[in-house]
């Protein structure tokens, strides 16, 4: 049984938003950049939103300035812009857009804001979505390719914004807001017995001063809550809109493919469109007819008979590679057996890292089944 093949060029020519997801380190950033470059070289005005690209890749895409806006990538035969997400700055911009300057400054100075905007797990995902919404709203590009943050689980990308808004809507926040709202009276409506204990314990744990900081922070943010919720909802809807497609990236390994499985199932539940699965860094051999076992046996015969040491070595190199290829193929088959309709494409493991436009082109060509990025007729 074999999976349908992902027609990457068709996707690149027709989609408006492509989101690259997958578990940590599988090649999301590399895939996003390769897809964007290929789309641009096929004639679409393209922008790629990258997240924490490796240093050398960032440099070769001209991503040296951290100004949170897309810049043209030099050396592209087409129109490609790229940017690196600056999560704190994106958050700051939302605050600025929703509050008058004096209040915004108070928010920026608050230690809880600083922590929330720079290190709360989920903020990065939320801000990536926020940025996507902004890029889309400008109407500047035919295609927006989005990379996603390096999380353990690809699902975090879909769950994190929800977590942030739940927190901002949460009971805890309402309690902290109560004194600001109703001069203290609301306390008793919001919470029942145990509240005295509650504040006293909280004061003990985090200290009175900290509690005040926190309360101020929450009060200041409150003006924006509606804004947060609506925006998160609007971007979430964008992910379901026609023209959006998800590309799930996985390494040919058990854990990564398992994550990919979860993600594919989740997308179906959410009715979000899946373009297909990219299996990245696969090992292939052009001499599959010589199996790992036969190659190893042949090498041993040479050892025993005092034959060519070089040939024995080459046979062992081949045996390792053929063994890996078979193992990877088996894992991939298992995925496709569970998800027989999901289109799949493989990208070979290159000998070194992918850190320049030529490397991205090579990955792009592999994604498209070995074709050069010819402009469609």
């Amino acid at each position, binding site marked *: 049984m074999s999976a349908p093949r992902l027609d990457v060029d068709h996707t690149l020519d027709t989609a408006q938003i492509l989101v690259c997801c997958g578990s*940590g380190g599988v090649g999301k950033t590399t895939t996003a950049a390769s897809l964007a470059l290929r789309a641009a070289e096929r004639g679409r005005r393209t922008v790629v939103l990258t997240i924490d690209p*490796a240093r050398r890749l960032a440099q070769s895409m001209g991503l040296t300035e951290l100004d949170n806006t897309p810049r043209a990538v030099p050396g592209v035969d087409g129109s490609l812009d790229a940017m690196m997400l600056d999560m704190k700055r994106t958050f700051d911009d939302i605050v600025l857009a929703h509050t008058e300057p004096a209040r915004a400054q108070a928010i920026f100075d608050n*230690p809880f804001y600083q922590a929330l905007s720079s290190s709360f797990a989920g903020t990065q995902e939320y801000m990536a979505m926020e940025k996507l919404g902004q890029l889309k709203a400008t109407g500047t590009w035919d295609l927006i390719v989005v990379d996603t943050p390096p999380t353990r689980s690809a699902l975090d990308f879909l769950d994190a914004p929800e977590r942030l808004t739940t927190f901002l809507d949460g009971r*805890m926040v309402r309690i902290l807001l109560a004194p600001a709202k109703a001069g203290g009276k609301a306390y008793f409506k919001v919470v029942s017995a145990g509240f005295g204990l509650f504040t006293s314990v*909280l004061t003990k744990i985090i200290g009175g001063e900290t509690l005040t900081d926190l309360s101020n922070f929450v009060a200041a943010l409150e003006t924006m809550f509606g804004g947060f919720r609506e925006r998160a909802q609007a971007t979430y809807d964008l992910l379901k809109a026609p023209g959006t497609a998800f590309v799930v990236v996985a390494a040919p390994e058990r854990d990564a493919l398992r994550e990919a499985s979860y993600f594919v199932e989740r997308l179906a539940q959410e009715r979000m469109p899946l373009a297909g699965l990219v299996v990245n860094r696969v090992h292939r051999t052009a001499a599959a007819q010589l199996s790992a076992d036969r190659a190893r046996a042949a090498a041993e015969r040479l050892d025993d008979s005092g034959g*060519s040491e*070089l040939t024995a*070595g080459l046979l062992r190199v*081949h045996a390792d*590679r053929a063994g890996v290829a078979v193992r990877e193929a088996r894992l991939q088959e298992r995925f496709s057996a569970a998800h027989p309709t999901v289109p799949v494409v493989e990208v070979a493991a290159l000998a070194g890292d992918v850190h320049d436009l030529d490397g991205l082109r090579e990955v792009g060509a592999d994604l498209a089944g070995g074709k050069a990025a010819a402009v469609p007729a």
Partner: protein
Amino acid sequence: MADFPDVRLHVVSGKGGTGKTTVAAALALALASGGRRVLLLEVEGRQGIAQLFDTPPLPYEERKVATAPGGGDVYALAVDPEEALLDYLHMFYRLSPNGVAARALRRAGAIDFATTIAPGMRDVLLTGKMKEAAVRSKDGRHVYDAVVVDAPPTGRVARFLNISEEVSGLAKVGPIKNQSEGVMAVLRSPQTRVHLVTLLEEMPVQETVDAVAELEAIRLPVGGVVVNMVRTPLLSPAHLAAASAGTLDRSAVSAGLSTAGVKADDALVGVLLAEAADHASRVALEERGRDALAGLQRPSYELPLLAEAVDLGGLYELSTMLREQGMA
């Protein structure tokens, strides 16, 4: 003689997927062998240790997961921040985990808040548990001879361990501040080492080099570098050089294949030579990685790439190698 005889708290970090959990578990087994008692702590809530030792998910309870060669026990605990917070409240405020106050806190989402959102709080709780386990004693003796932590990846480990810094902006006085200072004192002491796991690939090596600098800058004691999933070159140095230069002797290979009873057509020889060139460039990449790591001047240990994903048997194998190389 082992390299870290006085260390009680071994923190294992490394780039994601390099084998932190595997190495932490192998190190715990190695340290336990010969009759010692070691606690393996997981702080990222993924039950990776339970999977590795093939036991059901760990409850919030220190529980024996393996017996070391020559006697000795490995206990494991997956530290859950919420439970750790209730622990902490219990310890410092005699607040019963099932009492009214704890329930009120829970209902209001305060526990969730404190453990996931209040910045630094989670790390204070987790590192607090590490320290507590490392110094815990009963009847004048340490309960554990060593504690091994399966720590967050290199990108986050310095921040994770540097909680006093994290907390100082938020809690200026009070128990959290005191607590974090106590933890820092242990982390910076000769009882602690942070070990780094890496592969011989560009990114993990770079992250290791960066992490060493980062940890040293905040005065945390770096221990050894564990190079994991090492593959031995399958060709001699001369053949590797010729393979990358494209000057391997085709006819010798062809003849060799015939001797070995493999039908030697041109296409096959071409493929083998190309695969050899790939192999040579990978070996060269690995050599560069080794050189960069050698520059760190840290004790270093190598673990081979095992044929299959690591199971319990593989774990014992790896732990023996760590012992033989003097890490434990």
